[in-house]
C-alpha cells in the first residue's frame, strides 16, 4: 500500500519536475499519469495491490473536486455576468460533442468493418 503510494507520488513528482524544468504546457499530474501508464505497459502486468490503492483514490475522486468547486464563490460576479453565454455554450457544445463523437465512431466503425 505504501509502496504503491510511493509509486504514484513519485510519478507525480517526476511529472511536476519535468514540466517545470522544460516549461512544458502540460500539467505535472497528467505527465505523471502518462509516466505511470508507460511504466505499467513496460512491465506488462499490473502489480498486486496497485489496483486497490488506485481504486481507493479514484472511488472518492468526485469528493476531491469539492474544495476547488467551492472556489466558484470567488467568481459569483463573473458567473452572474456570463450566465447566459455560459449556459448557451454548455448546452450547444455538450449536444454537439456527443452527436459528433457518436457519428464519427459509427462511421469509422463501419469503414473498419467494410475494409
Amino acid at each position, binding site marked *: 500500500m505504501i509502496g504503491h503510494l510511493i509509486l*504514484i507520488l513519485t510519478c507525480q513528482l517526476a511529472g511536476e519536475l519535468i514540466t517545470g524544468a522544460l516549461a512544458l504546457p502540460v500539467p505535472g*499530474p497528467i505527465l505523471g499519469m502518462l509516466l505511470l501508464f508507460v511504466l505499467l505497459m513496460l512491465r506488462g502486468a499490473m502489480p498486486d495491490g496497485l489496483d486497490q490503492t488506485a481504486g481507493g483514490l479514484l472511488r472518492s475522486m*468526485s469528493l476531491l473536486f469539492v474544495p476547488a468547486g467551492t472556489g466558484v464563490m470567488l467568481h459569483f460576479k463573473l458567473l452572474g455576468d456570463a450566465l447566459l453565454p455560459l449556459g448557451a455554450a454548455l448546452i450547444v457544445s*455538450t*449536444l454537439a460533442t456527443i452527436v459528433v463523437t457518436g457519428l464519427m465512431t459509427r462511421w469509422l466503425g463501419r469503414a473498419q468493418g467494410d475494409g
Partner: protein
Amino acid sequence: MDNLAETWVYLSASPLLHLTLTLIAFQAANWLFERTGRNPLANPVLGAVLLIVAVLLATDTDYATYFEGAQFVHFLLGPATVALAVPLCRQWCLVRRSALAISVSLLTGSLTAIATATGVAWIMGSPPEVLASLAPKSVTAPVAMAIAEQIGGLPSLTAVLVIVTGIFGAMFGPVALDLAGITDWRARPCHGHRQPRHRHRPRPASQ
C-alpha cells in the same frame, strides 16, 4: 460559556473544522443523490459545493479560511490523476482493438467541444478568462482544472462547468444519441460522470 466561545474561535481558525465540513457536505449530497435514484440533477459534487457555499456565506467565512482545511482533500487530486493510469492500462486491450476509430472520434469530439463552447461564448461577448475556463470543460475534472490553470482560466469555474457539462451530458446525451440513431456501445455514455460507471469503478459516486 466563555470556554465554549473561545474553543469555537479556535476551531473556526483551524483546518479541522472546514475539512470536516467538506466531508459532511459531500456525504449529505451523496445521500441525496442515492435517494433520488442517482438523478443527474442531484449531482453530489454540485450539491456539496452549494451546501458549503451556503454555510460559508451564512457564517461570513472567506474562501481562503475554508481552503486552509479543504486543501488536504484538494491535494489528493494530483495523485488521483496519476492513478487514472491504472484503469487506462486495464482498459488498454479493449481500447487497442479499435484504437484508430476511438482516437479519431475523440479528437473530432474534443475539437467540437472546444470550438462550439468557446465559439458560442465568444459570440455572446464573454471575457478571455471565461473562454479559457470553458475550453477544457469536456475533459475529466482534475485534468480540465489543470489545463484551465495553464491557459489562464479559473480552475474553480472550470470545475463547476465540467460538473454541469456532465449533468447535461447525462440528461440529454442518450436522447441526442437516439435521435442521431447511434447505438454502438463505444459511442454511448462516454461523457462526464457516466463513463466510469461501466468501466473501472464498480460504484462511483459520480464524475
